[in-house]
Every structure is written in structure tokens, then in C-alpha cells.
């Protein structure tokens, strides 16, 4: 039973200001790079104080989860932003040519993080299905072909990550539950992405109807699924029970859409509910999703509570 995070963490306010200054051309790349590194150290320290077992760098360099990767892969261009809802926009990439591996996506971030912490590390990367679903496709005759081509690119990145010592990769695929009719494509894409990758593979999905993708996803070649449960009052645990879920479980038990910090008791109750479905060594306790939209002190407090609750359950079960 370990504690972990999904990926993102609130950026320190000074970093946001520095990013803006850099964007306006008022500070150079070197200063910006140093700021990113300092921010990662600060975030790592927050996670260490909170006591999280498996960490990531809080995604200090990522603005969002599609175009960050698209910008680093051959075959994508970004013409501009489109609206997702209300006043929220994202730079939606277009596939305009053959998708090919160009730059590393997370290798440098992984190596830096490794140099500043003794903690175990998980590397989250947006999956092929989601990136394609959230992009325009001008090049491939079908969406399916685009997904598989991108899966090959990500497979190469995963192998590069393993080469430098990464042993836990999390594929983020929030788009999969929004298209249950294309589950077969998503499944094939996973096979391509993880082929020959000697690492523990998790898959994170949030925001969608899980029932629609069960039991199909149980055949996915991943070691763990990470779902949000707190956001829906843990009702979805029932689905796992119904289908005799036997993979490891990333158990989202902290609501990232609410600023209210959960109580230790509440989280403990939730963990016990999860333990009715999986064994303690299959359980990875984490928040529902990335914490980046919360105020930093709230995010920290939530992690602290999560760890404390997990520790108490551990000692109750004699796991320490």
C-alpha cells in the first residue's frame, strides 16, 4: 500500500510571474530554466514533507497535457487555441504529417527529478488515444491510424525513459471513457505503447462514465488503473466489485475539485472501502487527479491528510 500523486501540483506564484516575464521577453531562457528547476525542488520538498511515497515533479514545465507533447513530436502544428467550455481554452494541435519521434518528452524532467530526490518516481505522459482525440487530424485517413502512429512514438519515449532508469510510467487517458465505442482502438494503442517497455505501467482516467468501458479495459496491458473515486462519492467501487477487478488500483480518494480538505477519518474510511475490493499490496492511494487547480496550501494539506490516513490504516493492519 503506497501513496502517490497523479501528476500536476500548483505552480508557486513566483513561478507563474516568472513564466509571464519570460513570455514577455523580459528574462532569458537560462533564468527561466533555473526557475523551473527551483520550482521542482520546492514541489519535491512539499511532497517529501507530506510524506508521499511515489512522486512526480508537479509538472512545473507543462501548461496543459496535449500541446506540451504535440510541440515535441514531429508531425504536429498548433494554429491556435480553441474553447473547451465557458472561458477555458487550450491550444489544439493539428496532425499535418507523419508522426515521428523528435525530442524527448519527459526524459530530462525525470533525470532532474531523480537528481534531487531519493523518492520513488512515477512519470505521467498523456496517452496516444487522448492526444489524438484532442487534436485535429489533417493527415491520417482515419483516427485509428493516427492513434497507432502516435502510440509508436510514445513507445520509443517509454523505452528511452526505461534506459535512464524510470521504472513506473503512468499513461494519462482521460479521453478513453468519453468514447466507449472506440475502446478497441484504445486497447490496441496501449499494446503498441508498452511493447518491450520494462516498467510498471499505470493508466489514469478521470472524468467520464467508467461503467461504459467495463469490462473491456480489464484486457488492457497495464499493471494498474488509476480512477477518480472521491468526486463521485466512491460509488464506482461497485463497478470494480461487479467485474472481479484484479489489477492494481490507483485509488483517487481526494477531491481535487473542492477546496475543502478531507479529514483523516474520511480518507481512512475510503481506504477501507477500497480494501474490500483489492489487497493492500495492490492499492496505490492518491488524489482523484492532478492538484494544479487548487491553492498550493490546500493541495499540500490534502496530501498530508492522505498520507496520514494511509499510515494509520497501515498500522491498524500491521503493515509497518
Amino acid at each position, binding site marked *: 500500500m503506497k501513496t502517490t500523486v497523479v501528476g500536476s501540483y500548483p505552480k508557486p506564484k513566483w513561478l507563474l510571474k516568472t513564466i509571464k516575464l519570460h513570455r514577455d521577453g523580459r528574462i532569458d531562457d537560462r533564468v527561466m530554466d533555473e526557475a523551473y528547476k527551483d520550482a521542482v525542488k520546492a514541489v519535491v520538498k512539499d511532497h517529501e514533507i507530506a510524506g508521499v511515497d511515489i512522486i512526480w515533479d508537479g509538472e512545473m514545465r507543462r501548461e496543459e497535457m496535449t500541446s506540451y507533447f504535440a510541440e515535441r513530436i514531429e508531425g504536429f502544428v498548433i494554429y491556435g487555441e480553441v474553447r473547451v*467550455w*465557458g472561458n477555458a481554452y487550450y491550444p489544439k494541435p493539428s496532425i499535418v504529417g507523419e508522426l515521428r519521434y523528435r525530442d524527448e518528452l519527459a526524459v530530462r524532467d525525470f533525470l532532474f527529478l531523480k537528481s534531487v530526490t531519493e523518492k520513488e518516481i512515477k512519470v505521467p505522459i498523456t496517452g496516444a488515444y487522448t492526444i489524438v482525440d484532442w487534436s485535429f487530424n489533417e493527415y491520417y485517413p482515419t483516427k485509428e491510424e493516427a492513434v497507432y502512429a502516435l502510440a509508436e512514438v510514445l513507445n520509443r519515449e517509454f523505452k528511452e525513459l526505461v534506459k535512464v532508469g524510470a521504472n513506473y510510467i503512468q499513461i494519462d487517458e482521460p479521453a478513453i471513457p468519453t468514447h466507449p465505442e472506440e475502446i478497441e482502438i484504445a486497447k490496441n494503442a496501449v499494446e503498441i505503447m508498452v511493447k518491450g517497455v520494462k516498467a510498471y505501467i499505470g493508466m489514469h482516467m478521470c472524468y467520464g462514465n467508467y461503467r461504459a468501458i467495463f469490462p473491456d479495459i480489464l484486457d488492457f496491458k497495464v499493471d494498474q488503473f488509476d480512477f477518480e473515486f472521491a468526486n463521485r462519492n466512491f460509488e464506482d467501487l461497485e463497478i470494480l466489485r461487479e467485474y472481479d477487478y484484479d489489477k492494481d488500483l490507483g485509488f483517487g480518494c481526494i477531491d481535487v475539485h473542492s477546496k475543502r480538505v478531507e479529514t483523516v477519518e474520511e480518507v481512512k474510511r475510503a481506504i477501507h472501502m477500497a480494501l474490500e475490493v483489492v489487497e493492500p499490496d495492490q492499492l496505490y492511494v492518491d488524489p482523484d487527479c492532478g492538484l494544479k487547480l487548487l491553492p498550493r496550501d490546500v493541495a499540500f494539506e490534502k496530501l498530508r491528510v492522505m498520507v496520514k490516513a494511509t499510515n494509520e490504516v497501515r498500522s491498524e493492519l500491521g503493515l509497518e
Partner: protein
Amino acid sequence: MRVISTVVGNYPRPEWFRDYLRKIEGLQKDLDVEVDREVLKKAISEVVEEQKRAGIELLTDGQLTWHDFLLTIASRLEGFEMNGLVRYFDNNLYYRIPIVKGKIKRTKRILYDFEIAFEIEKNVKPVLSCYTIAKLSKNEFYSKFDEFLWDLCDAIREEIEELEGMGVEFIQIDEPSLLYAEKDELKNLEDVFKELTSTKAKTVLMTYFDSAERIFPEVLDFGFDVIGLDFVEGYEENTRVLEEYSFERINVGLIDGRNTKMEDLNDLKRKFEEIVSRGEFKEVFISPNTGLEFLPRVKAFEKMRIVSKLKEVVS
């Protein structure tokens, strides 16, 4: 056969206007802050200008304050509360779901943005919707869906009367949900739509995101002057529809409003000619299949250029 270039409705907001909205409304669910009329007018003028520059003849106001796509109409009526976020058809776009909490009433002008556009330019069409709003809302008030639909219809009807009074030539009614209506439901909808289309203005039914073969022949009795079909998503099916049924005015949604890929003009021309050869049309409108807000603004403009170029080569 007269050919007219047009657009479907929404258009990407000018960047400065986007920043302005973000500043006054934030990113949270409490949107719908009153926008300063002069600021909105400036933004609408820009979008109207842009359409004209691209060669579009029948324009829209761009729906620049429509946070929830068609469901925005609900947010401007009494009786609805907006809540939660739901996916808008098969798009990676979300709207707040309108929840019916009380009797639906129209207490003020719904299309205040259209009114501004109409001050700037007379060749603009307002966009409304009725059945789709009822289908995508969550009814917690009426005991029967029909009662809800009829109250909504009355509210929209009032708006249409006002638009008619203003001297509007075309009124467009978008009904993507109609494409999924059951056959017996379609028959019942005839009265609702007749109510909406009995106006001096010419009414356009716009359908998109899917093919429309399931709503024929019933839709022919709804009283619309123009029927709009999506030939990007349903080229085969909709072409077959034209072979089987005849009507005089059609809106051909032929340019893909949801992909940045630019169509080949010759290919479009060939398809257009095939489509119109299937019927005897007096008037044909050419447009993208959907609103252009799905695209980054530079691409939205290029798509309108394609619409107007196609119009030139076929007329």
C-alpha cells in the same frame, strides 16, 4: 438557382474579447456577467467585418457570449438554472446543463447579441433552438416533457415575433438533437415547429453532427423554408435523402467546420454539383457543416474563404 454563401453560427472570439470575458467572468461556473454593450458591439463588429471580408453574404453575430453553445438560450430564460458540465455531442466541448426549476418564461430579449449585430449590418440571421434545448436540459419541474416543450416553444415563439417585427429576413433554428428523435415523436413535433415557423421571416432548420435521413419525410411538414443538412458527416445518407424527397431551398453544409484541414476546391465543386443535381432547388446556401468556433481563429477565417470561393465557382 440562386447560390448564397453563409455560416452556421458561432465564431471564435477575438483574442482581446476573450481576455476581457476571462477578466470579468473568471473561469468558474458563474458566467453570464453582463457584458458592457459597447465592448460587445466592438467585438461583434470585428466578427461581422471578418465574415464580410471573407466573402460571406448571409452573416451571423458569431454568438460571442454563448458560453454554453445552444444551451445559452436556456440560460437567458426564466425557469432554468445552469449546473454541472456535460459533453456537447461528440465534441471535446462542455456546457453547463440547464436544469428546469420552474415555469419557463421569456422575461427579456434572448438574442441581445443579435440585436447589436443587426444594428451594424442588416444581412445577419439570428439563431435559435427549441427541441434540442428541451432534450439536453434536465427537467425537474414539469410532470410531462410535452408541457415543458410547449412552454419553451412559447418563449422562443415570442422571440421570433420580435425578430419579425424588427424586419429580420431569415431566422435559423438549430436542432442537432432532432436527428435522434423517435419516429412517433417526430409526428408530435410537427405542431411545435409549425408554431415556430409561422412567421413572415424565412425560417431555416439547421441540422449538424450527423446525417438527417431519420427525420424525413416528417420534417417536410414542419414549415421550414430552408432545410440545412450536414454533408461532412452524412454525405451518402443526405444525398440519398435528396433523391427520395424534394424541397426547394437547402443549406448545404459541405466544408468541415471541425477540422483544420483545408478542402480541395475541385473536390468540393464536384460534391456540390452532385448534391444539387439530386433536386430542383430555387435557392442553395453553402456553409460549413457546423459553427466555426471549433477551430482556431486563423483557420475559421480560411474556412469562410473556401465557402465563398466555392460559391464563386458554382454560381
